[in-house]
């Protein structure tokens, strides 16, 4: 076969190599996998939920119930996928002949931008049009297929040309792409089968269709949170270029959730604030001090309590017939707040 068209020449050489690789590999071997991982995960969640219910942990129970519900939904989806992946017969696997693979490569060139065939790297790559999902521009994506890896893990990658990542996860370049890996969802079986059979046009088309579809129910980062930062306490999404933070832990915090410390005047989140056990004013955890008996008090209350304790202590000393045994400055250690309890000397 002779051709002067460089693209066709490269396509033929690539097609022959791809065909050879696919003919020697059982590329469908990993397609049918029973969802044992999801089953095990659900069983563990159920155990933890039962424990939380027995102990009366209401908040933990609610959270675990939601996790279990999500896990069971995934289990059901995985079972459906597994069922759908069963071939009609054991002889149904069909490998495209080299001529069809060449036709696919030429069709890919007509349908996608920037087809590159890198024979020395066993690589085929194309570029999508700019992708916009729910008014969020994610830019173009490059799909790189390394054909010698078909049938193994990660034979292709999806790379953002001009990444628009959410603020809190730079590995995510698309709601369904993390670390260049597309989570194919519904597309898993048809993509795997298209690759195994050498249907490259179908493969690139399917990957593009997944990239052009948004599934908010199962996204690494939801688009509603893409261009903003969620308040740590209530989840309210604030603009990325203007939001408050907790002065202590520095997590994002909205104005409704920030609490002023009555001692140091810093604004802190719910997790970094607490109330003084004596005066019940809100203070940040750094300003709170613990007494010997374990009470948590603000510095003002702690000082007052110590003074009170000292006064009571000295008045008791004066009245005690044993006062002479404890000269001033040599009294045994006492709990400042457990007034009236004096440790006996050894």
């Amino acid at each position, binding site marked *: 076969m002779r051709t002067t068209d460089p693209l066709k020449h490269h396509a033929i050489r690539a097609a022959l190599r791809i065909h050879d690789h696919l003919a020697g590999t059982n590329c469908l071997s990993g397609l049918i996998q029973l969802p044992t991982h999801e089953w095990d995960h659900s069983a563990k969640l159920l155990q933890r939920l039962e424990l939380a219910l027995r102990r009366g942990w209401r908040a933990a129970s609610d959270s675990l119930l939601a996790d279990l519900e999500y896990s069971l939904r995934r289990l059901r989806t995985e079972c459906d996928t597994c069922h*759908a*992946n*069963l*071939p*009609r017969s054991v002889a*149904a696997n*069909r490998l495209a002949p080299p001529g*069809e693979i060449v*036709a*696919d490569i030429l*069709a890919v060139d007509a349908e996608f931008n920037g087809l590159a065939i890198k024979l020395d790297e066993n690589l085929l790559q194309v570029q999508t049009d700019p992708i916009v999902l729910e008014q969020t521009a994610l830019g173009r994506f490059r799909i790189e297929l390394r054909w010698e890896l078909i049938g193994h893990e990660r034979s292709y990658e999806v790379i953002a040309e001009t990444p628009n990542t959410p603020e809190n996860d730079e590995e995510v370049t698309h*709601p*369904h792409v*993390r670390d260049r890996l*597309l*989570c*194919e*969802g*519904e*597309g898993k*079986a*048809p*993509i*795997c*089968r*298209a690759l195994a*059979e050498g*249907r490259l*046009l*179908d493969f690139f*088309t*399917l990957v593009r*269709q*997944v*990239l*052009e*579809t948004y*599934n908010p129910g*199962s*996204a*690494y980062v939801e688009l509603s949170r893409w261009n903003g930062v969620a308040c740590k306490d209530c989840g309210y999404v604030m603009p990325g270029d203007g939001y408050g933070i907790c002065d202590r832990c520095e997590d994002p915090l909205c104005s409704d959730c920030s609490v002023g410390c009555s001692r140091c005047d810093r604004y802190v989140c719910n997790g970094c604030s607490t109330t003084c056990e004596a005066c019940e004013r809100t203070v940040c955890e750094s300003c709170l001090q613990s007494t010997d008996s374990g009470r948590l008090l603000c510095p003002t209350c702690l000082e007052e309590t110590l003074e009170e304790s000292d006064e009571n202590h000295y008045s008791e000393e004066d009245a005690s017939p044993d006062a002479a045994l404890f000269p001033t400055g040599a009294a045994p250690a006492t709990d400042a707040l457990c007034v009236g309890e004096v440790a006996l000397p050894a």
Partner: protein
Amino acid sequence: MKVLVINNDGGGFADYVDVPEGTTVRDMFQREVRSGKSDSYLIRVNRQPVPSDQVLCANDRISFTPIKVQGAR
């Protein structure tokens, strides 16, 4: 006559099937993708987009690819 049918919905199966002469793209879609609407799919014959009333020929390769394919995380 035999045609190669590729259904990229669900399991993504490709198989040769026997169809009568005069079978159109619409007929084939209704036979292979029973629950979907044709405007929700990219329908190609021999890798080219086609109208739904096109009549299939022997050894044609017809493929149905959903426009929306939901990814996951």
